[in-house]
């Protein structure tokens, strides 16, 4: 019996240690990213880093302005969501309400495949199709490749779709059937019921889907790097190349050292803060909307 109790105590301690370790990992990551990034923030100045337009890390008088890349990240995220949200919401509605269970399962499987395809492959695909197409039709004459903001937006929309669809489908399925029946009973037709009643009832779930989609898009690295052209540039012409925060880190880390490397960690801090803002927004949405679907 004593042996048994010892074993029990051992495992209970093990469970407790595991969860403590798992929840401290985030803190450990924050500490090390800041530890590496703070020197550049201190030496170059937080304000200058956020708002200076010039990024010349290897110049004689180096400058570490991130604003163009921050803008590129924000713009590419917003534009890709502009594509992914309507397609995602409409197809979720279609899956939950308009098609048979069998077709829904098949399409959900396709969505899962899309979610599972490594981002390098998505980038490769867009590079060889969309970018090649852009090159042939718009760029050949001016002699640059088709790598551009537009291609990046397309890649990011593809990456956001599975996240948006899976969560919206769940939210729509959780809508209280009484709402639906009441709406149909009052004489609304199926489409009116879906768009005027059910989508409103699933509001918080849909918001969560969009926010999570945005999180996935902001952090996307490899696919964007392959198609965006990687030139630090921000322009209203979407056919020109651009570089996001993530791509900047991944491109320059391999040869950076000293303050330059610290500046890359500082861009990691900026990225991290953006993601944490998203997580907190999500938490607020879910806490506020928790009772909606009950």
């Amino acid at each position: 019996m004593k042996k048994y109790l010892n074993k029990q105590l051992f495992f209970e301690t093990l469970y407790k240690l595991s969860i403590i370790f798992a929840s401290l990992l985030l803190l450990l990551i924050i500490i090390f990213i800041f530890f590496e990034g703070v020197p550049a923030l201190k030496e170059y100045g937080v304000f200058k880093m956020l708002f200076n337009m010039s990024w010349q890390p290897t110049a004689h008088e180096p400058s570490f302005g991130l604003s163009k890349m921050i803008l590129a990240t924000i713009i590419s995220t917003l534009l890709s969501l502009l594509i992914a949200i309507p397609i995602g919401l409409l197809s979720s509605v279609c899956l939950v309400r308009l098609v048979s269970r069998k077709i829904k399962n098949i399409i959900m499987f396709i969505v899962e495949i899309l979610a599972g395809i490594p981002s390098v492959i998505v980038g490769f695909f867009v590079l060889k199709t969309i970018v090649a197409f852009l090159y042939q039709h718009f760029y050949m004459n001016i002699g640059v490749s088709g790598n551009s903001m537009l291609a990046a937006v397309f890649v990011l929309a593809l990456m956001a779709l599975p996240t948006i669809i899976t969560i919206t489908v769940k939210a729509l399925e959780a809508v209280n059937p009484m709402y639906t029946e009441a709406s149909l009973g009052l004489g609304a037709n199926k489409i009116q019921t879906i768009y005027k009643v059910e989508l409103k009832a699933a509001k918080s779930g849909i918001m969560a889907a969009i926010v999570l989609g945005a999180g996935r898009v902001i952090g996307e690295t490899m696919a964007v790097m392959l198609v965006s052209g990687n030139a630090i540039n921000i322009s209203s012409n979407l056919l020109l190349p651009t570089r996001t925060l993530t791509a900047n880190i991944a491109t320059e880390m391999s040869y950076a050292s000293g303050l330059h490397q610290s500046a890359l960690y500082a861009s990691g801090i900026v990225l991290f803060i953006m993601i944490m803002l998203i997580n907190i927004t999500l938490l607020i949405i879910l806490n506020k909307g928790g009772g909606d679907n009950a």
Partner: protein
Amino acid sequence: MLNHPWQVKLIKILTYLATILLVLLVFWMVSFIIIQGISYLNMTLLKESSSLIITTLMVVFLALLIALPLGIFSAIYLQVYTNNGKLVKMMRFSIDSLNGVPSIIFGLFALSFFIYYLGLNRSIFSASLIMSIVVLPLIIKNTEEAIKTIDIAQIQGSLALGASRFTTINRVIIPYCIDGIINGVILAIGKIVGETAAIMFVIGSASSIPKSFFEPGSTLATKLYLIIQEPTYSSNGIGSAYGIALILLLIVVLLNLLVKLVNHIFMKRRG
């Protein structure tokens, strides 16, 4: 809005069109990779990529070896031992946030912590360590979801019969949620196989078959990225990239089918 029949019709058509567009996009991507890659899927590619496949398997194995017990134990603690206190809420927020951390941040952390701070070499071992952290939230979430579906009466029954909480976990909870654990593992394998940004700074690169976990290596995904950027890295040029992309795609499809199979089998068992 939606008061006229034509508006209703328009919305209905748009809804169907969006779904068709979605399916066509995925179909286009998958068929593109298959058509381009199939002609390169031969012995030359297999010989070239054997070291990549072995390295990838090594990372999968070691990362899961670390993440699996850690994840299952954490999930059990969260579901069985805790109330919904403030501390637990913070733990949950931390683990949920970890799930949303972009892989490039994991990459930065891995370089700083494993390579600079702990002084480890750029190796398969370092890559496995960071991947175990990347997939940990996935395993915790899936195990938790499975534990949540257990009929509370079964747990109460076990406790009422005099079994301790520990025995209940071992004999009732873990056997019951084995399918959730398997699902988590399959999804984690998919994530590890496709990951590039989190490991690119810490795995180094090599083209021969690694002899131990402490040697640098290249996984399928990291090598694929290198070849796309610089086709001369491979003797077959961009052709190898199509071949490797096809291998990765096949792995992803297989893993997803496996999830379906597992769910099907256990659904039957649960009745």
